[in-house]
């Protein structure tokens, strides 16, 4: 109990003191996870939309594959990305292993199935005739897509939150492809693992609290947008 209390105190002190190392780790965490979430959104949203609106054979199998991808262990993804990025691997010449770029790649692979899966779910909960209605009003395919995204914006925000949540909290992939190198690839989760292995529980707890606080802030921002939309929908 004493350790937890000390950790909470330490977390506040680290934040108040503005420890440069902690800020650097926090900033890199946000940069890597934010970039990975943004890329997964750019990839996942159109793919999810296409899959939600098209009918083709093997669609069910593909959905199952995507749903499996949503539960992929980050450490397995870290392993495969490492194999591809190692110097002897197919993309070894790019020199990306143990860089933030490698971490972004791994985290993008983790978040993309989540964004695709939740985009499909978000669009499939809309009235199936809405697409026909929009086409019947003279909307182009692109206009239909934007209108449907707007209609499904609340669950799509949930997809964004889930994608961000999955990558900011993962440790296995970041550790394997980033290497947890000080001042280069150390993010909050890998730092927590390191401090715990060193027996510095107070610092580990402090870093954990900072991580939770960041996750909370980002989700608070997204949730407030989501709930504002939900309140507007409520029938008076």
């Amino acid at each position, binding site marked *: 109990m004493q350790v937890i209390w000390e950790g909470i105190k330490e977390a506040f002190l680290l934040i108040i003191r503005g420890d440069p190392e902690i800020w650097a780790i926090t900033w890199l965490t946000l940069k890597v996870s934010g970039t990975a979430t943004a890329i997964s959104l750019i990839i996942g949203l159109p793919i999810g939309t296409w899959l939600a609106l098209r009918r083709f054979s093997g669609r069910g199998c593909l959905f199952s594959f995507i749903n499996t991808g949503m539960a992929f262990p980050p450490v397995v993804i870290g392993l495969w990305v490492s194999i591809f990025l190692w110097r002897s691997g197919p993309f070894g010449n790019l020199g990306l292993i143990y860089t933030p770029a490698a971490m972004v790649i791994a985290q993008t692979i983790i978040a993309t199935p989540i964004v695709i899966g939740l985009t499909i779910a978000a669009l499939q909960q809309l*009235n199936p*005739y*809405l697409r*026909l*209605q*929009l*086409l*019947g*009003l*003279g*909307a*182009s395919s692109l*206009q239909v897509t934007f*209108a449907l995204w*707007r*209609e499904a914006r609340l669950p799509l925000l949930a997809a964004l939150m889930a994608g961000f949540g999955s990558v900011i909290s993962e440790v296995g992939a970041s550790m394997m492809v980033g290497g947890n190198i000080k001042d280069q690839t150390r993010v909050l989760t890998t730092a927590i693992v390191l401090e715990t292995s060193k027996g510095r529980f107070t610092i580990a707890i402090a870093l954990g609290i900072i991580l939770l606080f960041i996750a909370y802030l980002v989700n608070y921002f997204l949730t407030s947008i989501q709930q504002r*939309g939900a309140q*507007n*929908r*409520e*029938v*008076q």
Partner: protein
Amino acid sequence: MTSREHPVLKIKNLQVSRGSEFNLSINHVEIYAGEVIAIIGPNGAGKSTLLLALSKLLEAKAGSISLRGKSIEQIADLEYRRQIALVLQEPLLLDTSVFNNIAAGLRFRGISKSEINQRIDEWLIKLNISHLKDRPASQLSGGQAQRVSLARAMVLKPTLLLLDEPFSALDTPTRMSLMQDLRNLLSETATTTIFITHDQEQALFLGDRIAVLLDGKIAQIDSPQNVFSSPIDTTVANFLGIENILPGYVMDNRDGKMLIDVEGKQLEAIGKLPIGKDVFFCVRPEEIILWNTADMPKSSARNQLDGQITSISNKGPLQQINLDCGFPLIVLITRASAQELDIEPGMEVCTTFKASAVHLIPR
């Protein structure tokens, strides 16, 4: 101005498949400028399939659809859809204000802001929804939402307006008020319209012509008067609520007046069918007058049948009386009449109906 030479829409030998079992097959239909065609048919007859095919949202297997003389195959999908407007059974409004909903189709077409404002204001007034302009669509009642949906379509000034049962989810007063407004607006704007419904009253109220769609085929297309008084076959007659369809044959034919034998009873009808011809003798239940046998006055009606009441049931605001006249006969009367006649099952009654109320369908 309605031109009968150049139809706005022409459908020829259209074949549309939906699923492995259902086929829509339309031989030939022409719809003229400013005309409202009501397509009626039971559930599963293919009404919505036809509308989706006409919206180019469902591909035709064969045949052609022409809009203003040009095959829609030669018109790009988007260009074609921007000449039509579709209103579906559910209003399917977007999660935004009434104004933005009505503006949706105009914005899709890239119309200027000032014109959008002007056109929306015009249609808000026409559909009596000006007070709802800034209200979120989610806060509208069913009737208000359907008015917005109609405004959203009509503001586009479509060459062809397609309405798929837009009133089916509304209560009677709301429906009647909206139908009245829509009829006035369609007439005022001379909008060529295809109106899908399963409700005969709605079809009668709005349609300049009525097409009866049964099992994927147009069984009859004609003026409302002709469709309802002279159904082309027993299936159409059945669907239109002509419950008395009795087999018989022509016994005599003089000066357009025919004597028909129905189960041994001689009944009169108007027409010119050859003697000996087998027919179905059709008479609407509401065309038959029921009398208390003792109070039967002298009537000009040519047909008179005595019978016994077998059962009485409610049919909406009316009462359905089932009679045994040697064959089953159904009569519809008001509740007030039923009360006045003090009828009950087993009672002997008399019925009369005019020869002109009879429609004969050759067998």
